[in-house]
């Protein structure tokens, strides 16, 4: 089983949106996947996955031996493949209930159950929860918005990955790092309000896994509790599908990174 952390340092950049879409994408490709919410206290992965009304037990219950992992895992209803499970976080517990040995236990149980991937949705910041989410990671998706503060925080979290992950501490092969740009608006980049994906990549010096465009459909999807990758035909869904394919080793050109000025006809018809 591969453990993948979706992390950023900075808050609100799209980690949870990405965790939901990426885990769904892996499941759609046939991999048995679990997506785990590490945001103890805020808990919104279950909302984005549209399973909040089915939450009975959470990861802390499992760690405290109050529930079995199989009881706490919620089967996703959006993937026809029926191989995606959500492990929610608790809204009420103390963050410190998320212990290192507890997380290790949960991950080893998932491995025994035959999961191919565990996707860890990290909370923002560099505190306990974020460290727990990345401790056992084999790979990391560094979710970054095209702005200076986000790039800086991503750099910071890369440093923490290098110093606090299990792989770093026991000197094995380092965590594989991937850059994912989210909320990318080619128009605002063109206008100089945001930095280009090339600049971000140059600043962070890690391979680019994809660029997810800024889109209103993300908000709609999360309000409906549907992971964005299921929004057939939308730019965001296609960008996440591409990203999953690249993660699995396919070579695909980047899309949705250039701004096309609205043409004459479109302007006549009142398009944006």
């Amino acid at each position, binding site marked *: 089983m591969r453990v993948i952390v979706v992390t950023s340092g900075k808050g609100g950049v799209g980690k949870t949106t990405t965790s939901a879409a990426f885990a769904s994408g892996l499941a759609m490709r046939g991999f048995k996947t679990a997506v785990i919410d590490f945001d103890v206290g805020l808990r919104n992965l279950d909302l984005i996955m549209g399973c909040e009304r089915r939450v009975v037990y959470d990861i802390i219950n499992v760690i405290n031996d109050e529930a079995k992992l199989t009881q706490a895992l919620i089967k996703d209803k959006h993937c026809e493949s029926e191989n995606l499970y959500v492990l929610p976080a608790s809204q009420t517990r103390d963050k410190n209930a998320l212990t290192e040995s507890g997380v290790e236990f949960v991950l080893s149980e998932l491995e025994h159950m035959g999961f191919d991937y565990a996707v860890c949705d990290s909370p923002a910041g*560099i505190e306990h929860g974020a460290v727990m989410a990345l401790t056992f990671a084999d790979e990391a998706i560094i979710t970054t918005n095209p702005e200076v503060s986000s790039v*800086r925080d991503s*750099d*910071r979290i*890369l*440093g*923490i990955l*290098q*110093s606090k992950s299990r792989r770093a501490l026991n000197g094995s092969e*380092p965590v594989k790092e991937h850059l994912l740009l989210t909320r990318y608006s080619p128009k605002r980049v063109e206008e100089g309000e945001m930095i280009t994906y090339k600049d971000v990549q140059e*600043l962070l*010096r890690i391979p680019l896994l994809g660029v997810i465009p800024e889109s209103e459909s993300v908000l709609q999807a999360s309000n409906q509790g549907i992971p964005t990758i299921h929004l057939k035909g939308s730019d965001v869904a296609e960008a996440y599908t591409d990203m999953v394919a690249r993660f699995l080793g396919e070579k695909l050109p980047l899309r949705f990174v250039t701004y096309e000025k609205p043409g004459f006809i479109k302007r006549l018809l009142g398009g944006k």
Partner: protein
Amino acid sequence: MSRSAPVRSIEFHPFNLSALRVVLDRADPAGLADELHKMLGGRPDRFSGEAAILDFSALETLPARIDWNGLTSLLRRYCLQPVGVYAVDEEHAAAARNKASLALFEHLDATPVSAPAPRASATTVSPFSLAAPDSASPPQADLPFEPSAAAPLVAGASVAPTLYIDRPVRSGQQVYAHGGDLVLLAGVSPGAEVIADGNIHCFGPLLGRALAGARGNAQARVISTHFSPELVSIAGVYRTFEQGVPEAFAARAVVVRMKSANGSGQTISIDPLQLD
């Protein structure tokens, strides 16, 4: 135990102290706190408990009163252990002894302290410089000060092995090559700090803070293929770039070294390197 126990329960042996000489250009703890913060990026773990001698020889006149408690607690905060003072009059020496248990050092057999730093260029010249007395310095520190000497020595090469860092040094990380050179093969991000007692060689973008000759080796250099740091320092003389790195060498290959400006203190020079 293989060592024979002393005959008496207390014995006194002469001992040569190895300590850092903290050369001060001002004596007010508040002002120094600010300078130290700028210089060391607020990192409390910069030193590791070395004994420190407060050297006032660079001050033209000593203030009437010195806040000894303030000075010692400031240095302790950065993990230095003040043990003595140098170049103060009797009255100050008595106060230092009574208030902060600091011994008076009559003479330090080290390279002479540089002339006072010019007040006008306070942003480029540190009121601190950290110089190691004889016993702690590599032999070449005894050479007459001449940065562009015909046969420059690789400082630290015989003292400690070079530290190689293959991955980018990220924001919030610190790397310190104790005693020797530091070779960085994947750049330094903004907010990261790289320190060497010898030289720093940086391949890839140098965007963070780089401090060479951290224990006072004024011959140390910073060599960078892509120079855009937040701060560079040679032997405690530093330069910041709040207004951005000047066009002439921004993002270019440069060498940074100490320059003696005869009699008017030390500054550092940054010169482009011709690579092709």
